[in-house]
């Protein structure tokens, strides 16, 4: 709570929180498209590739202005993306290998440059190595203004071309047939992703920045089936994780910011994977258990129906032991029989003998009918999936 109060009074903490919220929201928003277009790893390649760009920008200008360093980072990230495309198109190297190649080549080159810079007899060089794992505490107002400006432009562009980017992500070829300049839209959206990445590099670091691109949308996808809501949730998750991680690392300890933010965003992801309705694991487990129990009850009822069908009277009683034998994998059927009796589908005749009631007969016949129809339909659906 103390930290929370300081947020409004302490200038440094406020700056840090604002910066982290900005980068979390922007990367969450643009990351949504990256995740939906299966380009999560492109984000990783871009962020790693940005390191030599930052180093070269410093070497060439001698400046540590955020805009200068971000420009260097963006150009290097862009170059890496272009090279990935070129390698994929012109050689037999596949997309994932090309990504891995560019990531490691650029990152390695960046590390060499960084070491070289640190050996320079120049006091100004200090601090560039924080770009590796990020340092939120070093954020000053100038940085945050730059981040907010660039991020704002990126979000605005995303809003303006909302339907075009949606079309690009869902069905690019159809979009092309409508006459949209799909290649330019692709270039535009990738540029926005590059912007989202470079504004976070100083705070989160090149090594872990891709987590801010991938994790918030992955968590948001668990909660919603609508693109608009997914973007908003992803922005909220990104900002939350960014702010809490940055404050934890800047406020109390000297933890590196990137890893702390990643830990925070992981909590959001794990929580979403477990708890979200429909897609969440706990929800699914409960649903499966419920439907499993229902199916087992139905199986016992249908067994009884099948047994009775061999007699003149449909309410001919049968022994529990027979039903046990018919369902060896299910364990004793007594509890299921009792549950069926509670529902009025069967009635006990003598100890361990059960007979169908008229309601039970009707229910069994209804089940048989619906299964015929339902399964036929489902089969066809599945055929379609195969192609």
């Amino acid at each position: 709570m103390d930290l929370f109060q300081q947020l409004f009074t302490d200038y440094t903490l406020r700056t840090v929180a604002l910066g982290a919220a900005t980068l979390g929201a922007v990367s969450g928003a643009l990351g949504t498209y990256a995740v939906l277009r299966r380009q999560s790893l492109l984000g990783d390649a871009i962020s790693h590739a940005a390191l030599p760009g930052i180093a070269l920008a410093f070497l060439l200008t001698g400046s540590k202005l955020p805009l200068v360093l971000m420009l260097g980072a963006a150009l290097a990230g862009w170059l890496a993306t272009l090279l990935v495309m070129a390698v994929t198109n012109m050689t037999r190297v596949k997309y994932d290998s090309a990504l891995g190649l560019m990531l490691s080549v650029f990152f390695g080159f960046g590390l060499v440059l960084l070491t070289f810079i640190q050996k320079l007899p120049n006091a100004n060089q200090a601090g560039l190595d924080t770009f590796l794992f990020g340092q939120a505490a070093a954020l000053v107002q100038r940085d945050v203004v730059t981040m907010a400006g660039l991020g704002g432009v990126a979000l605005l562009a995303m809003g303006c071309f909302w339907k075009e980017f949606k079309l690009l992500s869902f069905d690019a070829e159809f979009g092309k047939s409508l006459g949209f300049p799909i290649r330019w839209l692709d270039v535009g959206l990738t540029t926005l992703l590059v912007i989202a990445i470079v504004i976070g590099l100083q705070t989160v670091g090149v090594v872990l920045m891709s987590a801010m691109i991938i994790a918030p949308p992955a968590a948001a996808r668990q909660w919603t089936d609508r693109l608009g809501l997914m973007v908003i949730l992803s922005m909220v998750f990104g900002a939350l994780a960014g702010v809490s991680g940055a404050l934890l690392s800047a406020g109390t300890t000297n933890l590196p910011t990137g890893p702390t933010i990643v830990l925070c965003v992981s909590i959001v992801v794990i929580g979403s994977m477990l708890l979200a309705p429909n897609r969440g694991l706990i929800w699914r487990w409960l649903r499966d258990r419920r439907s499993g129990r229902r199916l087992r009850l139905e199986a016992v009822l249908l067994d009884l129906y099948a047994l009775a069908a061999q007699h003149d009277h449909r309410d001919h009683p049968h022994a529990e032991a027979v039903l046990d034998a018919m369902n060896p994998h299910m364990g004793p059927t007594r509890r299921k029989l009792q549950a069926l009796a509670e529902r009025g589908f069967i009635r006990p005749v003598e100890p361990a003998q059960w007979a169908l009631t008229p309601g039970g007969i009707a229910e069994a016949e209804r089940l048989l009918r619906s299964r015929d129809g339902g399964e036929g339909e489902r089969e066809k659906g599945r055929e379609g999936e195969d192609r």
Partner: protein
Amino acid sequence: METAIEVSDLTVAYRDHPVLWDIDLDVPSGVLMAIVGPNGAGKTTLIKAILGLVKTAAGQVLIFDKPYEKQRHRVGYVPQRGSVDWDFPTSVLDVVMMGLYGKIGWLRRPGRRERAQALDALKKVGMDAFANRQISQLSGGQQQRVFLARALVQDADVYFMDEPFQGVDATTERAIIALLRELRGRGKTVLVVHHDLQTVPEYFDEVMLLNVRRIASGPVADVFTDDNLRLTYGGRVAFLKAQQSKDDVPLAKVG
């Protein structure tokens, strides 16, 4: 009769391997035409080449006597169902409205009128009850009908459909056939990549037999002959047409 689609000398190659070789094709206006041929014959590539979605090595395409680029607004497209991610977070109505994006123009969002048009198209394919469903909940046949509705809102004069009958249930197959006939009734031209040789005479007016080259094209009665099919498929045609053909004496000798 007016010519709806005129393709001349169309050639597509991947590296130095020809996929389509010197294709000429005239499709008269107001007909349903099937494109048939074995796997790898270039059926999908032909449609994509006409629509400018793959790079062509040579050739030109005219739609109603003008280059395709100028006639885009008169062309509708139904891609293969499997070409998109059906787990994308969007609703059925949203997907259908995408057919209108070209007409809406930049910087504008679909509004009430677009929603009404999309709902109307969904009604025509019997999917209006699904308008607000998430698309991942659809069966294969329902996905196909959503794609058809998306093409319907394009209100085109010429339609290209890539395997709309692939793996769909009987309900959807009937719905598609009814739709194709309705389109023809309104004077539209539809080109359909088709797999099932047996239904060609029943469903279509014209047919194009394709295997990298154009083997034949024209009215089904003239072109859909055993000789042409043999040229297109090689000996395998004996299996394909066996049930349908009543005088199967000559076919029995094939292969």
